[in-house]
């Protein structure tokens, strides 16, 4: 027997279903709009980069011999849009890894697939700003020398370079070929999100000689 209570419950459930369906459709439409806007922005950013005037940027290049990062100024044309700028900055940094006389030997044609941004979820103790999700190429991970120091320096140099040139980035998360991965090359943890202002190591005094 269908009671009055059952009827009310049925009506409430039906209403909830309709409301959820409407909400899902709205969310899907918004996500689609965002993707389209991003797709429209990216080719524009790339063409703008070619004609845009060069800007002085600071790259933090690792020195594996003393575990330090060296600030190097470069003049490079930066495209419009922070996503594209972050990608150009990191590609320039990776080029510097392979410069003659390097102590951080990584040579790769293209190290960054993409960089995209997420707002930092606001909660207790969270910094404001944006999370940069850096999608490293599998080729970079394969060319990365395995070890705590070389892997940590690769990540720290990227954090420092992004932090210095794009201060709105407060946190960074790394993927490899679009997928989460446990480590960069067997050591440095990629499961966590890093603070962009994470330690800039200083060279420690070298015993028994001059560095």
């Amino acid at each position: 027997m269908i009671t009055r209570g059952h009827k009310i419950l049925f009506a409430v459930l039906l209403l909830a279903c309709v409301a959820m369906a409407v909400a899902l459709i709205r969310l899907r439409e918004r996500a689609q709009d965002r993707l389209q806007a991003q797709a429209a922005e990216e080719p524009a950013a790339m063409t703008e980069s070619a004609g845009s005037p060069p800007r002085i940027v600071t790259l933090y290049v690792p020195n594996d011999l003393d575990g330090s990062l060296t600030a190097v100024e470069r003049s490079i044309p930066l495209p419009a849009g922070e996503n594209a700028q972050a990608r150009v900055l990191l590609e320039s940094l990776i080029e510097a890894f392979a410069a003659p006389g390097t102590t951080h030997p990584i040579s790769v044609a293209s190290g960054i697939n993409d960089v995209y941004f997420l707002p930092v979820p606001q909660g207790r103790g969270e910094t404001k700003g944006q999370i940069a999700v850096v999608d490293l190429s599998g080729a970079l991970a394969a060319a990365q020398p395995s070890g705590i120091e070389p892997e940590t320096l690769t990540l720290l140099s990227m954090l420092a370079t992004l932090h210095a040139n794009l201060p709105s980035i407060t946190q960074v998360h790394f993927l490899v070929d679009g997928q989460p991965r446990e480590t960069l090359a067997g050591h440095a943890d990629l499961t966590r999100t890093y603070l962009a202002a994470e330690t800039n190591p200083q060279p420690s005094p070298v015993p028994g000689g001059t560095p």
Partner: protein
Amino acid sequence: MRWIDAGALAVVAAGVMAGGWAQTSGPPAMPVPPPPVQVQPRFVVALDAAHGGSDTGARFGQDILEKDITLALSVHLRSLLHARGIEVVTTRESDIDVPLLNRAETANHAQAAACLVLHATPTGSGIHLFTSSLNPAPSARLLPWDTAQAPYITQSLKLESEIDTALAHSEIPVTLGRASVQPMDHLTCPEVAVEMAPLVGGHVSHPRDITDAAYQKQVVESLAAALEQWRSDWKQP
């Protein structure tokens, strides 16, 4: 979320050690105060030879693998510490896969006074010492698994300094840093990752390969000396 009960093992250990007078049966006619018992904390060193089995770690040329170098360092260091009367637990004694979880549990169960995680890398020069990149946190009975190392960071930095001094004494170049490398964040002991690199660069008078027996011996002897010094300086938290 996974938690570690940092207090439980200590309570059990103290109970067993104090058992001589704690296990009296029936109330005595005249209450006799128990003699003061000095519970001497055990000084145990945990050695983790990183990698092993299918996880080869870094490669040095064609056929030298990091997993073999770390195991050789661990075995050598264990014997030097035994000779100094220091108790040692190791996470592996052969070329086997050991999950990170088991490595942390071995070290934590031993309630080690020092944990050394041994690595080797083909780049850089000398010895790289790393402590966990976690921020120091106050001690608690229940420690979250992901940040279990946080209350030990201050002690870990002291241990790192002790090792740095011993290596400097042997004129081995050292670089210090903080890193996110597992299982370091899960260890409930003063811990340092010791990463051995070849001796290269302008400041090195005698370049040495990582497989150089004399270089390895010098490193292991410096580590043993540092741990012996740590035995005098270490205070159980």
